[in-house]
């Protein structure tokens, strides 16, 4: 087996925060801590403290934003860190980038860490774009000569050449962000820590930014730690991932497995599988999938319970999305039977024959139209999972890892 070249080692990192107003009672706690310290005992407030579950009320004023996080990163690896809001991602990044210290534990590293928790840190509105490039670059840890040698590339990448000698306060917010990201993109540390900064700028710039990130990680072999809610970006960039949950790492492994784990975990808590909108005022009373199991290539029978007496129903359409929020299928009654759908009964059925979906989780948005007006729109009203199957009836079950497609199609070879 190849010897692992571990560049970053996180050992049992924990971080405790005090809830409520800092300042009230801090002096008494500080004095108490000091009293324990001179008697040679540990910090009394480290024992108390709940796990970081923001939804439930805890017993203590102290919480563990992170508790016992361990992981290792190899050189050249791109590690994705995913988790819900408040799972401890940002705290972990803050500790990694030395903005704040851990309460317990240790992080060992073999390379310089540069962090991008925000783009444009230290930008000064009164200074020109060029001056800000130097200032921001220096704050991020570059030397003046390093910046000077790259300044032309940075300006070109930012696409703000025309404005480069104008004070930044005259820039549009998009331009400021472009300029800031351009500086960050040319950082050359051994380890780069990135917090969702890719979610800035317009579509064109985002594409450019992700491309640059890929260059950095793949082409130049830099180690990157990447935190994001954008599963598509994580999937694109990362080679491995960890899932943080309530301050501890709950899953570690291949990116796809992690995303799957994260999504299925999320789903159980926030959306109900086979959900029904049991609201009497709704026109769409209930929506469910009649099949027990949905596999690639099977028929999907979606059953709607509608209160058709209330309106003159003319059209029902639904979109099927994957969990990267990409719309995979659009299904509408508009294109069926000259736009005519049966409205006499309260029950409406839609059958998707030989569904082309690949393995994974999907959700459904539904729109109900009456006389060309959308009277109801339900988001994520149905979540279902598609499992692998022998789509092509050839005796081979699809291998998702080798296919990586969003949709399947039937075909023939001559």
């Amino acid at each position, binding site marked *: 087996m190849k010897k692992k070249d571990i560049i970053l080692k996180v050992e049992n990192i924990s971080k405790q925060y005090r809830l409520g107003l800092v300042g009230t009672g801090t002096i008494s706690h500080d004095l108490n801590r000091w009293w324990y310290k001179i008697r040679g005992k540990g910090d009394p407030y480290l024992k108390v403290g709940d796990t970081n579950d923001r939804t439930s009320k805890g017993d203590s004023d102290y919480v563990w934003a992170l508790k016992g996080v361990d992981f290792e990163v190899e050189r050249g690896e791109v590690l994705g860190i995913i988790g819900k809001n408040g799972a401890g991602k940002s705290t972990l990044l803050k500790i990694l980038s030395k903005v*704040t*210290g*851990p309460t317990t534990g240790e*992080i060992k*590293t073999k390379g310089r860490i540069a962090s991008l*928790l925000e783009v444009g840190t230290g930008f000064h509105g009164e200074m020109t774009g060029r001056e800000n490039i130097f*200032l921001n670059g*220096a*704050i991020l840890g570059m030397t*003046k000569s390093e910046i000077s040698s790259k300044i032309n590339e940075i300006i070109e990448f930012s696409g703000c050449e025309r404005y480069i000698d104008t004070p930044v306060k005259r820039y549009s917010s998009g331009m400021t962000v472009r300029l800031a990201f351009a500086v960050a993109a040319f950082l050359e540390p051994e380890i780069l820590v990135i917090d969702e900064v890719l979610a800035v700028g317009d579509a064109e710039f985002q594409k450019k930014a992700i491309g640059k990130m890929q260059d950095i990680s793949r082409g130049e072999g830099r180690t990157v730690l990447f935190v994001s809610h954008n599963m598509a970006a994580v999937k694109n960039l990362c080679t491995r991932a960890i899932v943080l949950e309530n301050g501890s790492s709950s899953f570690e492994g291949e990116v796809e497995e992690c995303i799957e784990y994260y999504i299925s975990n999320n789903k159980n808590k926030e959306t109900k599988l086979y959900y029904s909108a049991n609201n009497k005022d709704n026109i769409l009373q209930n929506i469910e999938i009649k099949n027990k199991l949905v596999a690639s290539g099977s028929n999907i029978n979606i059953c709607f319970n509608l209160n058709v007496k209330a309106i003159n129903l003319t059209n029902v359409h639904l979109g099927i999305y994957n969990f990267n929020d990409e719309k995979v299928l659009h299904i509408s009654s508009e294109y069926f039977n000259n736009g005519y759908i049966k409205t006499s009964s309260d029950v409406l059925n839609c059958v998707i024959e030989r569904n082309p979906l690949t393995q994974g989780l999907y959700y459904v948005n539904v729109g109900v139209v009456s006389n060309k007006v959308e009277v109801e729109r339900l988001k994520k009203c149905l979540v279902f999972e598609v499992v692998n199957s022998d789509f092509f009836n050839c005796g081979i079950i699809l291998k998702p890892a080798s296919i990586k497609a969003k949709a399947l199609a039937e075909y023939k070879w001559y």
Partner: protein
Amino acid sequence: MNNKNSDWLYTISPKKKLIDLNFSEIWRYRDLLLLFVKRDVITQYKQTILGPLWYFIQPLFTGVIFTLIFNNLAAIPTGSGVPPFLFNLAGITSWNYFSSCLTGTSNTFKANQGIFGKVYFPRVITPLSVVFSNLLKYGIQLLVFFCFYLYFVFFSNKATNVSPQFVIIFLPILILFMGFFGLGIGMIISSMTTKYRDLTFLVGFGVQLLMYGSAVMYPLSYFKEKVPEYSWLVEYNPMTIIIELFRHMTLGVGDFSIFKILYVGVAVILIFSLGLIIFNKTEKTFIDTV
């Protein structure tokens, strides 16, 4: 499969050593220090008409007012043959440098929490940059002082008893003392204010009160003569000694002794080291308490 533990570049841990200063790291960030100074200088007088002229106007007007109030009105003597305006200007410029270093660094953590919360660099760079950009300002004001000095010596008959002493070669050390004394106190205050905001209220008027106790607009000898029972308060204020020394170096008037010089040296080094230690201890976790 495991690596040796010895070849780690550095470790992030909660353990705090008393003195944990990484000088090579600070040196690596020297460009940042320069750019911070540049930023302060460039942006301070942007969109003003007089621009850097304000550097001159501030001490000049204060000098004129002080001369009117304290010398013409209150008749505080500045020594025979020493023009009161020159005497005041010497005190004001030196005091300004010290106080701007103190107030400028005393809100380091609060004013920079935006940057400090997002990026790591040796935090001590920020207060140091304040001291350096103020040094530049002080340099300009010293130039003004010496211009007036020359005017009084060569074009007016008032300055009959003014002569620079040869010890003026130690002026750079004295300036270092002023800056680092202010920096030391400022760092202590900025570290304390991250948790307890009370000190911010103290700084504003405290500095003003301290000016009256630092022999800025009167000679120490006159104070000792008039209020002998409280004179020790002023006499052992390090800033008094620094200002008296400055006047001795440049004008040839001043009350000092070798013992006092040693006292100032020790006091400044102590306060600065204390500030540095407290500042270093605070910088690791301040973002959670600020």
